């Protein structure tokens, strides 16, 4: 991750977030993918450096080739032209629990120092301030994917010392990609560590966005700007 010049700083950090997420994927990876940014990043990777990426959605669609951007993970466009549609019992047992998923892509309402993810409630479970949707398949993805990558915007409420509720365990989280920086998980210390900054973002700015005494990797990298071809591909996908 080389440093970048000032002229690149105009690139939208949310675009960088998607491009960084796409770059995490290797050609041939079997990826369990949630809707939204993870889905966009996977399709971007497929258009760029990973044409043989295998996308699996929890609806059971394997090797999808959607002709439109799906609104939900059960969209009919994920079925038409897929390689396989598996019953959900098979998705969770034969594919996830059996260990066939290389990368799991998750979002998070909250993620804490240890990498634990909350998508269930804000506040107390029996008297929540905000009721979120809950686990869906996230608890299984987090437990069984070989690498778990979380994509979410940096925000102090979203990065507490301890989440209000552990929906999905953090033990397999390897990387958290935000719109300002990247955290890697130090598996020895069970802790998210700041590993790279986006252009124009300071360490203090990141510290202000997390609820614990943040450790910073040395040396700290700057995230390379996405290539123009990747940004073009991303914009094309967004329009599709």
């Amino acid at each position, binding site marked *: 991750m080389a440093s970048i010049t000032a002229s690149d700083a105009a690139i939208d950090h949310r675009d960088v977030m998607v491009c960084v997420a796409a770059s995490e994927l290797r050609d041939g990876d079997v990826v369990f993918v949630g809707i939204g940014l993870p889905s966009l990043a996977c399709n971007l990777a497929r258009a760029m450096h990973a044409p043989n990426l295998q996308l699996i959605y929890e*609806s059971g669609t394997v090797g999808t080739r959607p002709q439109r951007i799906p609104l939900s993970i059960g969209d009919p466009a994920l079925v038409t032209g897929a390689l396989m549609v598996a019953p959900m019992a098979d998705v969770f047992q034969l594919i996830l629990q059996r260990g066939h998923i290389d990368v799991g892509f998750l979002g998070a309402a909250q993620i804490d120092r240890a990498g634990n993810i909350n998508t269930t409630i804000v506040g107390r479970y029996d008297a929540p301030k905000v009721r979120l949707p809950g686990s869906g398949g996230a608890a299984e993805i987090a437990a069984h994917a070989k690498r778990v990558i979380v994509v979410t915007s940096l925000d102090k409420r979203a990065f507490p010392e301890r989440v209000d509720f552990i929906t999905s365990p953090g033990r397999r989280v390897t990387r958290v990609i935000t719109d300002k920086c990247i955290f890697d998980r130090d598996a020895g210390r069970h802790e998210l560590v700041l590993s790279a900054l986006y252009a124009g973002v300071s360490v203090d700015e990141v510290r202000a966005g997390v609820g614990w005494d943040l450790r910073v990797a040395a040396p700290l990298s700057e995230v390379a700007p996405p290539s123009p071809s990747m940004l073009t591909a991303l914009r094309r996908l967004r329009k599709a």
Partner: protein
Amino acid sequence: MHDAIAAHVHDGDTIAIEGFTHLICFAAAHEIIRQRRRNLTLCRLTPDLVADQMIAAGCVKRLVFSWAGNPGAGSLHAFRRAVEKKERPLEIEEYSHFGMVARFSAGAAGLPFWPLRTYEDTSLPQVNDRIRRVTCPFTGETLAAVPALTPDVTIVHAQRADRAGNAQVWGITGVQKEAAFAAKRVVVVVEELVDEDVIRSDPNRTLIPGMIVNAVVHEPWGAHPSYVQGYYDRDNAFYVEWEEISKDAARLDQYLDEFVFGLRDRHEYVDRLPQLRERLTPEPHRCDGVDYGF
């Protein structure tokens, strides 16, 4: 539909209306609302708008689920108002998706529990005492376990069935098979009622055999605003619109008055939405058949 719901869904029943995004039987839910069923335990992986409507209509005492949202579009606000503001009593019993799949699988298999490798280091077992541990008699390791779920009635929507209820499904099949076999009674709702010979021409497509089915209802467009692969597309515009309807309790009530209580049946519902055919009829995308000869 009226008769099937009257006969098979009773106050206080535990019911499953399954379908993962695909094949969610709104027609049955609306009929349950119309018949003012009360104190239901509603079981669904993804409660979806169908649960939001039933909660708002006061049918649901307890929700057993794993993901309660309006995917890609927002929240289930009637559900949230019940849980966050306690505007009406609603018990919740929560799992992950596989936890729900496992509960239906155990029920369908005639087993009292199902083992799974989820929930280690999570908070769910602390708030749900139906998530327990079981010890492997071979390796000695402990796994999670959930109990069988055996609904009084399961309602599944399918592309087609014969009069005996032998039902064929393609596209996303979700947990329909397990939910049906787990139940004491099964209602199958279909887009097309076909001759037995159509079913017999392709027996590998049969997901639910007639021998476990108690009622077959022919109800075209019965899954709208959900979708039926090959028959009609998902009404994403309505899912997005629901965010605004559902946010406002009065507007939600008005929706129910207009589209549920104010209508006699699904036929009138389709008539009230005249652009459905133009907006949602699919481009054909037929596959070839295969040879069953010997």
